[in-house]
């Protein structure tokens, strides 16, 4: 077998059924081997960044490893953003890139870049395959590393001469032998016992859970623990869907755009038990003033996360599912105490607020609420990055694990549409909705054609406020309302000192998303009022193929609650509706 055939055999051995890719000079041998391939569905994206995001969406929606295939040079550099996105959110993907032939490496050959150098700090691990003899083991190791322990992206760079070289006696390895890689799965029983004793004694305990719960599939174990002990919990953006949105002990998402009860509970608890969460700055705000009264316990499969940002009194290294199961056995049941009642009442007394009157311009919050009502129960929501992402996190009623997919750590605009494509291909029977802003949607808008041609029925909901809304919000609140280069309608004739929409604004908005959709063979719909919205959502969600549903929303709506950067998370701006009340 030659190198290309070995790669394809390895993918099948790993249970891969779908690839996302883009050909180029040095990967022609690989695509040649795929030419008559029936077991693998190869999706030709229109940009390599989209291929990697699609593999990422495939992986996030299933927990299986997603695979992207790109060429050398620009194909590889285009893949970089996708790899970094997967790294920051611990998503298992394998990205296979072509490379110039071995003898040319280092000569600045045509379409040569140092892919292993570029991916070193943005992948979990990476390989440059110098010798065909190493290829089987590298393929095996790469998939193992991507999906085990704390998952992450693995890059495999394969020179073209390795793809064409023959290997006699090829056999795919059955076992993995990596002396330097042994993830800790079982938590130390002494530490778990110590944690259980500390929980038993705590008066104001709080669970702070993140993406690690989803990666470990530990939702049931977590709910068993919190329900047995009546300890309230908060869930980060990456963990949304861990429980139903209206679970009685769930306080919502904490952080910069967190819920009032979640943030205040974080700040006032006496024991904070983090599980698969990493004390990110968007969650903690000012670290020096974060949860100062709390003993910190931290359960994580990655020991390097423990103590990275905050001093931890009770570290437990291990897989969340295993540790929570053991913890659940050790803990004694306890009734809801005064603390539990207090924090849940804060939640009940501080609902999210916005205003929407009939016939009035659409509020983005209203759009998300209506989508939440009209979408199917097992729908997968994929977002892009910006205001709509936070509205989706806050206003959508998340209904289960792996149903909310979002670029959290890297905050990659352009992620939504291609990631949703990947989610559709992994879950062909489920409704998949990409919620995007008008800015981010344009960053991978070329994938509409991929959706139409391959009949990938992504339901794209474009929240169009004609602004790069999140940056505009910061400029409004903290930069004296100087809207510098955030208006997507701005022309050279606009006054440079523009401070927001006014009577003289140009009417024309480019592109016309409905026309773009239609030009790509995708159904295009538009709504500007609440009545139009309901009709559009009903039509769009029922439509069989891919569809773009554009919502023209209020231009200057802000995401609240909000904690200004660098402030402690209980110094919250709750928004105009709250202040009126």
């Amino acid at each position, binding site marked *: 077998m030659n190198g290309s055939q070995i790669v394809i055999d390895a993918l099948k051995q790993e249970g891969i059924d779908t690839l996302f890719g883009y050909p180029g000079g040095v990967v022609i041998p690989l695509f040649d081997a795929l030419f008559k391939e029936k077991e693998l569905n190869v999706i030709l994206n229109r940009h390599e960044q989209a291929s990697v995001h699609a593999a990422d969406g495939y992986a996030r929606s299933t927990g299986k490893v997603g695979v992207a295939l790109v060429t050398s040079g620009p194909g590889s550099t285009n893949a970089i953003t996708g790899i970094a996105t997967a790294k920051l959110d611990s998503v298992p993907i394998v990205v296979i890139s072509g490379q110039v032939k071995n003898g040319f490496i280092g000569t600045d050959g045509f379409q040569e870049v140092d892919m*292993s*150098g570029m991916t*070193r*700090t943005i992948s*979990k*691990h990476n390989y*440059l395959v*110098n010798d065909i003899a190493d290829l089987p083991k590298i393929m095996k190791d790469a998939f193992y*590393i991507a999906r085990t322990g704390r998952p992450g992206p693995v890059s495999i760079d394969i020179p073209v001469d390795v793809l064409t070289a023959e290997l006699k006696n090829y056999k795919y390895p059955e076992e993995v032998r*990596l*002396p*330097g*890689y042994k993830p800790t799965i079982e938590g130390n029983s002494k530490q778990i016992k110590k944690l259980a004793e500390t929980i038993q004694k705590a008066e104001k305990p709080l669970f702070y859970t993140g993406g690690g719960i989803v990666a470990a599939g530990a939702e049931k174990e977590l709910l068993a623990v919190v329900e047995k002990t009546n300890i309230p919990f908060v869930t980060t953006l990456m963990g949304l869907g861990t429980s139903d949105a209206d679970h009685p002990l769930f306080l919502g998402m904490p952080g910069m755009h967190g819920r009032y009860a979640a943030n205040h509970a974080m700040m006032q608890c006496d024991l904070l038990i983090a599980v698969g969460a990493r004390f990110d700055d968007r969650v903690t705000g000012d670290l020096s003033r974060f949860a100062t009264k709390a003993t910190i316990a931290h359960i994580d499969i*990655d*020991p*390097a996360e*423990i*103590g*990275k940002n905050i*001093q931890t009194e009770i570290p437990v290294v291990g897989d969340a599912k295993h540790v929570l199961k053991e913890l659940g056995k050790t803990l004694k049941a306890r009734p809801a105490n005064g603390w539990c009642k207090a924090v849940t009442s804060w939640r009940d007394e501080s609902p999210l607020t916005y205003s929407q009157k009939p016939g009035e311009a659409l509020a983005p919050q209203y759009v998300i609420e209506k989508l939440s009502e009209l979408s199917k129960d097992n729908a997968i929501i994929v977002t892009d990055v910006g205001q709509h992402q936070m509205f989706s996190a806050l206003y959508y009623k998340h209904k289960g694990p792996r149903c909310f997919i979002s670029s959290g750590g890297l905050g990659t605009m352009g992620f939504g549409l291609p990631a949703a494509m990947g989610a559709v291909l992994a879950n062909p029977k489920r409704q998949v909705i990409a919620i995007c802003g008008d800015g981010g949607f344009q960053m991978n808008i070329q994938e509409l054609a991929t959706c139409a041609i391959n009949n990938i029925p992504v339901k794209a909901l474009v929240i169009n406020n004609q602004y790069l809304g999140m940056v505009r919000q910061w400029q409004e609140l903290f930069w004296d309302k100087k809207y510098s280069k955030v208006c997507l309608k701005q022309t050279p004739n606009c006054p440079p000192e523009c401070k927001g929409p006014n009577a003289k604004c140009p009417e024309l908005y480019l592109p016309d998303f409905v026309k773009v959709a239609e030009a790509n063979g995708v159904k295009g719909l538009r709504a500007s009022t609440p009545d139009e919205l309901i009709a559009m959502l009903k039509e769009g969600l029922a439509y069989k193929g891919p569809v773009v549903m554009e919502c023209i929303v209020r231009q200057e709506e802000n995401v609240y609650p909000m904690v200004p950067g660098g402030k402690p998370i209980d110094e919250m701006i709750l928004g105009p509706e709250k202040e009126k009340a």
Partner: protein
Amino acid sequence: MKTKHTIRLKVVNTVGVMARITGLISQRGYNIDSIMSTPTEIPDIYSVHLVLTETEDKIEQISKQLNKLIDVVKVTDISHDKNYIVREFIMVKISTAKNRPDLLQLIGLFRAKVLDLASNYVVVSMTGSPRKIQRFIEAVQPFGIQELDRSGEFAVLDV
């Protein structure tokens, strides 16, 4: 408080393993005092000695991050405040123009080894603790150091 540490790594000798180690340290914003990589008694396994001056919690974080590298098999942090034996090897070329007898006497006192003696310079080598090495360099400085090469420090835990 920042103190000196030697982080001793056992690594699988793959292409780019040193780049991974140094890249990780610079990526996280730390600075390396010295680094040395040598073969061990096991084929394919190399020993890397990294010397860093950092606070305890940062050293702990660096050690954990290094441990995450797939090619790193073992990480041992040896704090220079605790029980350790640390040695460094130097080679130095010193001018003999000023006062050759005094210089040779100094070399003898420090038990440094004369490798070559030319008409106007002497080449010596010496192995010692960082303190002894420092003292020797200070002592021969006035004679005129023409070239100085240091191995970097390496350490073993002495318990």
